[in-house]
């Protein structure tokens, strides 16, 4: 689980998380048009709902994280979506923490932006049914990178907070290795699917 609960991290970390989130959020909101609101909300709802789906792989049960995918589809606007989804996850289910919403958004949102940049560099956003395999490939890379970076952020944050978290970090990382693969495959498939079915969605930003 990439959400960090309350009370774990050092306060300068989660405080800094709020600051970073506030800045990126303000920027993204300024880029966002009011007519984007319904679409972004529906997509946020879709991300929220799909992240409730659990797949059992071996002894563990994983669920989709979808930050890379959100980045690929929405670019910078993925950031407010992830923020809203995390707030609702926290309030509706108690996932993650309240004070850590800021840092959790950084952990998911910044990798989403990186995933977008990778996807854009790889495909030039020229997505058609004919370029489906390229889109799929970079979708998979973006999806994988989204999770890897999120985990990396998490690891660094835990370890800087205190040495006693090293074991926890190792455990969290190791249970998430399958998720990297799952998320990469998932994002690849879904990007390929959309390239076949409704390629113009990639242009809608």
């Amino acid at each position, binding site marked *: 689980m990439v959400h960090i609960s309350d009370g774990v991290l050092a306060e300068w970390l989660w405080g800094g998380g709020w600051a970073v989130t506030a800045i990126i959020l303000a920027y993204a909101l300024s880029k966002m048009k009011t007519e984007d609101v319904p679409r972004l909300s*529906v997509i946020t709802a*879709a991300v929220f709902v799909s992240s409730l789906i659990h797949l059992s792989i071996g002894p563990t049960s994983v669920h989709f994280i979808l930050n890379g995918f959100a980045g690929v589809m929405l670019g910078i606007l993925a950031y407010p979506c992830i923020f809203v989804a995390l707030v609702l996850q926290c309030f*509706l289910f*108690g996932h993650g923490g*309240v004070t850590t919403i800021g840092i959790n958004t950084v952990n998911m949102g910044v990798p989403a932006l990186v995933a977008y940049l990778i996807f854009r560099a790889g495909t030039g956003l020229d997505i058609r049914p004919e370029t489906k395999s390229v889109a799929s490939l970079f979708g998979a890379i973006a999806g994988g990178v989204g999770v890897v970076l999120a985990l990396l952020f998490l690891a660094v944050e835990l370890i800087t907070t205190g040495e006693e978290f090293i*074991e926890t970090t190792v455990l*969290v990382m190791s249970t998430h290795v399958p998720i990297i693969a799952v998320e990469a495959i998932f994002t690849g498939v879904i990007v390929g699917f959309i390239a076949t*079915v409704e390629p113009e969605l990639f242009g809608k930003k």
Partner: protein
Amino acid sequence: MISEIDRYASLSSPIHRWDPRFRLVSIFTLIFSVVLLYNLQLVIIGMIFAVILTCTSKIPFSFVLARMKLVFIFVIPFFIIIPFTIIGTGVEIASFSGITLSYRGIEYVLFAAMIVLKALTAVMLIFPMIGTSRMDITIKALEGLHLPNKLVQMFAFTYRYIFVLDDEFMRTDRALAARGFKKRGNMYTLTTVSKAIAMLFVKSYERADRVFYAMRSKGYTGTIATLHEFHARKQDWVNTAVVIGFALLLQVAATSDTFIATRGFI
């Protein structure tokens, strides 16, 4: 099915009657205050206050505990892992194939307990904070607190469409099962579920267009105006003073020598 945090919003209690804008700010502050504590006794005092607030709100404890069960699953690994180490020093308890597992000591157990209690307190406080008014009123309160309008709208619509899409996905899930699909831990399952989710996204985009059309044809110009107005009464200020006062008191106490901070062990 997504369960609803506001199931008990129609009860009547002092917390329910508290102006949601004040309630949000006050309890939010309290959560931060508790999380900032690094002393087990103070955290326990904070937790007791959270329990009192929750009881005052009349939200059944069984409902609260059902949610906290989930939190336990997230934070319990800390409790299990932190007291033990494979790298540092401590009392050796097991050794297998070259790895030595040691027990760090009681301080570490207390430290882990503090983390877990803080996390639980924060989650428990969510119930009196937003479980005491309907979600839509809570979202309106965010607007009353001058959060950016676009963000508030995103909360409102996302909340509404979570239920629509959850239904939609449930139907797809049933359609999968009705055609002999069984989730297993294999590639076929993963790609199939991925495609089903992809379809959910494609349909969501279309739904988004239609919703936007519907809003526009009802005169929407970019801001959602509602009739709901909040009026702060004296009691709202009193409640706020009590809760924020308590939050501040915790912080003041934390600076005193009586409550020594345990900030980790380096």
